[in-house]
């Protein structure tokens, strides 16, 4: 059995002339929580649809739990749980009916304890119809159903989107509890960097369909540093600064966000007339933001 939960080689998916996924090489080991972040349109949802076999690639190869995603058997699919952002469940059905169906489908592997643990923190009664549930209740029920299925691979597409603080915290607690099961791999995408910081073992950054980072979140954060320099006049030209992510001039002081700044960067700034140079680490959300926005045109310095 392969040691990878997910492997893609040269994975490409075109929508018309646009590349949603562009030659993506990704290898996610089994176990732990892998968080995928990227701007809207970076290819996260397309990747998930391909992993689940809802969509076929335009090119390249995809392996899920060691098997080509196009050749997943019904038995393979039973080992994969999926929670989508809309928490889609039939609105006319009762909670009891949906639960009974899920239990029947996964009778041989149903984990009642996992289901009960999650559902206990959401106040649901069996007779309620799905359509009457709040978004938070539906999210909790959906995650409980997925964990009850005891999946080897759990894929979550922005599970906390649109939830209030209370529901979000309950969902996170459930996720932390559920992810610690032996030999379970969780793949999770979110725009909430705060959650990623709490949950993720690895941080995968996608940008325009390609892989830009694959490391522990703290290792990613360490690559990015903020510099504040007092440079009379213009400062060094941006194209002389490899690794420059962001540059802003505030009250005459230059602020730089740098990726993999070279050890001599302070001297470089002084060489361009900086009278004072300070550097500091950045929080993860700032690091991700600077990294993802680096190619966007900002106000001219």
């Amino acid at each position, binding site marked *: 059995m392969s040691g990878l939960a997910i492997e893609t080689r040269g994975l490409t998916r075109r929508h018309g002339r646009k590349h949603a996924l562009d030659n993506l090489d990704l290898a996610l080991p089994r176990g732990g929580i892998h968080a995928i972040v990227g701007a809207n349109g970076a290819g996260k949802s397309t990747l998930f649809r391909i992993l689940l076999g809802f969509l076929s690639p335009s090119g390249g190869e995809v392996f899920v739990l060691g098997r080509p995603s196009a050749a997943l058997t019904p038995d393979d699919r039973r080992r994969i749980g999926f929670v989508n952002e809309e928490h889609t469940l039939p609105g006319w059905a009762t909670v009891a009916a949906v639960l009974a169906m899920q239990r029947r489908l996964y009778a041989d592997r149903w984990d009642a304890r996992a289901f009960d643990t999650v559902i206990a923190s959401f106040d649901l009664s069996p007779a309620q119809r799905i359509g009457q549930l709040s978004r938070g209740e539906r999210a909790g029920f959906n995650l409980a159903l997925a964990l009850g299925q005891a999946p080897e691979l759990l894929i979550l597409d922005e599970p906390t989107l649109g939830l209030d603080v209370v529901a979000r915290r309950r969902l996170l607690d459930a996720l*932390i509890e559920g992810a610690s099961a032996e030999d379970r791999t969780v793949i999770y995408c979110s725009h909430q*960097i705060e959650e990623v910081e709490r949950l993720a073992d690895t941080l995968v950054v996608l940008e325009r369909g390609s892989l830009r980072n694959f490391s522990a979140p*703290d290792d990613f954060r360490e690559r990015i540093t903020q510099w504040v320099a007092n440079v009379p006049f213009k400062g060094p030209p941006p194209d002389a600064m490899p690794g420059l992510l962001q540059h802003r001039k505030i009250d005459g002081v230059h602020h730089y966000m740098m990726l993999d700044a070279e050890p001599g960067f302070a001297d470089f700034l002084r060489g361009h007339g900086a009278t004072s140079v300070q550097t500091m680490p950045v929080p993860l959300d700032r690091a991700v933001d600077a990294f993802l926005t680096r190619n966007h045109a900002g106000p001219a310095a």
Partner: protein
Amino acid sequence: MSRTAPLAITIATGDSRPIVRQIIDAIRRQISTGDLSVGDKLPSVRGLAQQLAINPNTVSKSYAQLTAEGWLESRAGLGLFVAARRDQLSAAERERRLGEAVDRFVGEVIAIRYPADEAVAAVADAFDALTLVRSA
């Protein structure tokens, strides 16, 4: 069977310190201030992860580093406990801490506009007083 000491710490996301670091700093501070005493039992990895709503692997990393540094010790089958103080810091680390302490002190003295030589003399007096107490 020893009971787990409550660990009143919080972490903040969006801090420039990683969560691993925040936990390490908080536990060290509690040990230094006596909020945690030698022999106190730490929460389980899973327990602290639940308390802080974070990935258990993060707690494991913090505990591993504190154990390697001699702040905590593991007793087989029982869990992690606050270890008896030894000289836990490397020479480089002690030098770094001293630098930080001096920086803080100098910052305070500058803030109240005290002459440097008088501040230095006051520090020397404070250390002399310590020595007197100890040799008495």
